[in-house]
């Protein structure tokens, strides 16, 4: 909370919610990379076709979406009570609950907990929340090595790279690149490694199995936290998450506060929606659930860190709060024509694509991510694909209304509105529009910022007569 009691945004200088450059600048670079374009086109097309097929199998898909949306809306309306209930149940089951107002607090809590164990290495389950807060960097600064165990996340970590997709963080890499990364950075790798996918997976398996058996602390995120029972759930496809959640002595889970769900039966809805919308699977391969500590079985020390980092501020916005309904399935990324061409890095945040364009600016405050609400043609494919019916286009428009506007643009827009509010002025302006011929032969070369149009498109020849002039004369 700030001094006025208004909820705070995610702080600057920590974590990965802000890019180094505005979206159009970063996108321009990404668009010029043919390898990236090919990888993205292939991967997004494959996933969305697969997902489209299994979604079409369910006759009640629309009802499931509505149920998911209603459950999330209920949860957001009762968030404080549900979180307190979750804390009480986790504590009763032998876990310890910590509250982190922002990324700095969460990083301090987790670093302190690992330090208390005396261990110097942690294994990690793929987690968006820990990427968001920059936990790996915080741990490394404290002399603790985090090892990512999700295959794609490991590729990103070994490549000293950044994730570019929520579900498939190494979507921008192909197998030749992965082979090079492994040969360069994977401890104990076979120098004769080929780029055959099973060989690459085998190399990762050898390295990870050894790490699982020799590391005593794990850090995870959570897909769901059930308030009624204090049960945490992680959904993954490889089984590496299961290793992290069961083998070590200590498990530390960092969960965004919006991931709480009221009751156990609610998972019935989400575990149908999530795999079909995300990976295009009918049932999720590895669903791990645990409730506090079970003596003699699994981690004997369990800590749950509940993370705000701007979420309460998002909740305060009537239109924008829908973004908190996101279950991180990535369906919106896979259908987005902008994401398919620019990839995730252009968004500058760990949350790319359409959901990132509405979530990142709200977590940081719109001024810190002012170009993201504009990183969309408002085509609406994301809204149709979202398994919990988040109206992303409407949130984008809403955030554009809050974004700081360039001064010249604001003046032009104001003048245009003033002209269009008076039919006589409007008609005069229409005639002046013929002066668009200043653009020269065949409409090339408008002045900035309109040269963005004429760089790739001819302007139409201005007509001899407007419609209203024709109408008057007939």
């Amino acid at each position, binding site marked *: 909370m700030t001094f006025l009691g208004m909820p705070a945004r995610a702080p600057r200088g920590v974590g990965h919610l802000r890019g180094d450059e505005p979206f159009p600048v970063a996108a321009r670079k990404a668009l010029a990379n043919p390898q990236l374009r090919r990888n993205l086109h292939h991967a997004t097309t494959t996933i969305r076709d697969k997902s489209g097929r299994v979604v079409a199998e369910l006759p009640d898909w629309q009802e499931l979406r509505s149920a998911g949306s209603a459950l999330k809306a209920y949860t957001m309306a009762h968030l404080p009570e549900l979180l307190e209930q979750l804390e009480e149940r986790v504590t009763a089951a032998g876990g310890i609950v910590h509250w982190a107002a922002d990324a700095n607090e969460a990083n301090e809590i987790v670093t302190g907990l690992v330090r208390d164990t005396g261990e110097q290495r942690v294994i990690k389950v793929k987690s968006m929340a820990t990427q968001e807060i920059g936990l790996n960097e915080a741990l490394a600064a404290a002399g603790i090595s985090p090892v990512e165990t999700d295959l794609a996340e490991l590729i990103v970590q070994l490549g000293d790279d950044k994730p570019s997709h929520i579900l498939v963080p190494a979507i921008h890499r192909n197998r030749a690149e992965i082979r090079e990364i492994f040969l360069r950075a994977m401890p104990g790798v076979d120098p004769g490694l080929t780029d055959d996918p099973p060989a690459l997976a085998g190399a990762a398996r050898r390295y990870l199995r050894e790490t699982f058996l020799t590391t005593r602390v794990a850090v995870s995120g959570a897909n769901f936290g059930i308030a009624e029972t204090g049960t945490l759930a992680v959904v993954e496809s490889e089984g590496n998450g299961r290793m992290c959640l069961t083998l070590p002595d200590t498990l530390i889970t960092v969960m965004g506060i919006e991931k709480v769900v009221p009751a156990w039966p609610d998972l019935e809805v989400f575990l149908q929606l999530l795999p079909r919308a995300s990976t295009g699977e009918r049932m999720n391969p590895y669903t791990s659930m645990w409730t506090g500590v079970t003596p003699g079985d699994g981690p004997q020390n369990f800590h749950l860190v509940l993370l705000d980092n701007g979420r309460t501020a998002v909740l305060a916005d009537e239109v924008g709060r829908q973004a908190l309904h996101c279950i991180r399935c990535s369906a919106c990324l896979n259908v987005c024509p902008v994401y398919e061409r620019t990839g995730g890095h252009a968004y500058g945040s760990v949350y790319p694509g359409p959901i990132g364009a509405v979530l990142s600016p709200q977590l940081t405050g719109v001024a810190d991510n002012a170009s993201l609400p*504009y990183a969309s043609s408002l085509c609406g494919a994301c809204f149709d694909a979202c398994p919990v019916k988040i109206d992303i286009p409407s949130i984008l*428009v809403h955030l554009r209304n809050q974004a700081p506007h360039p001064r010249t*643009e604001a003046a032009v827009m104001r003048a245009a509105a003033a002209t269009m509010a008076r039919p006589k002025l409007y008609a005069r302006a229409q005639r002046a529009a013929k002066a668009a011929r200043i653009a020269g032969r065949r409409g090339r070369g408008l002045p900035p910022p309109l040269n963005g149009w004429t760089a790739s498109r001819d302007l139409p020849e201005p007509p001899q007569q*407007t419609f209203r002039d024709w*109408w008057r004369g007939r």
Partner: protein
Amino acid sequence: MRIALFVTCLADTMFPAVAKATVQLLERLGHEVVFPVEQTCCGQMHINTGYQKDALPLVRRHIKTFEPYDVVVAPSGSCVGSVRHQHAMVAAGEPGLAARARSVADRTYELSELLVDVLGVEDVGAYYPHRVTYHPTCHSLRVLRVGDKPVRLLRQVRGLDLVELPAAEQCCGFGGTFAVKNADTSTAMLADKMRHVLDTGADVCTAGDASCLMHIGGGLSRLRTGVRTVHLAEILASTEASS
């Protein structure tokens, strides 16, 4: 039927042929078309660019202009989309205006909706002897849900050879000010759309929005492909006598 034409500022200023075609088509079908001259712009560009406050006077004017009419038509999916899904939101700050906005929205139709749903006609008696591919614009497809209405209309046009556009439902990259603010990404999307159009071997690419066609047509013209963009209204207005 007496039908008020919501011409859209773009068609009025840059593509009067689209608006004239809409008038000629509806009159040929035996309806009376009126043009309320007080209309200017629906404010969509301002709303979608983040200028809702500046858009309010435009929304107010639009409501006042079209309130007296029972049926309003526009040759544009995105302008009708704005009237139907955005005007009440922009008008919310002014007592009573949102309800009036919803009332106008309920009587406002995109051209293919008017023809198929309201007038109950699919064969409009058109003749257009060309190979044509149809691009479903995003707002007609996903905001208005016009579905296959435009295609049903095109199938009845004599002489017209309709060819399916690959990846038709993908955005062409126009997106209003997106085309300027994110010109590079917009162009990358356009490049793929043009590739698909060219793959069909069509002479003409048609759609229900002059704005998207200005973008696609601008690209096709720049590359000297020889493929033209023609609005759906212009095809439906064409007859043996006019061609």
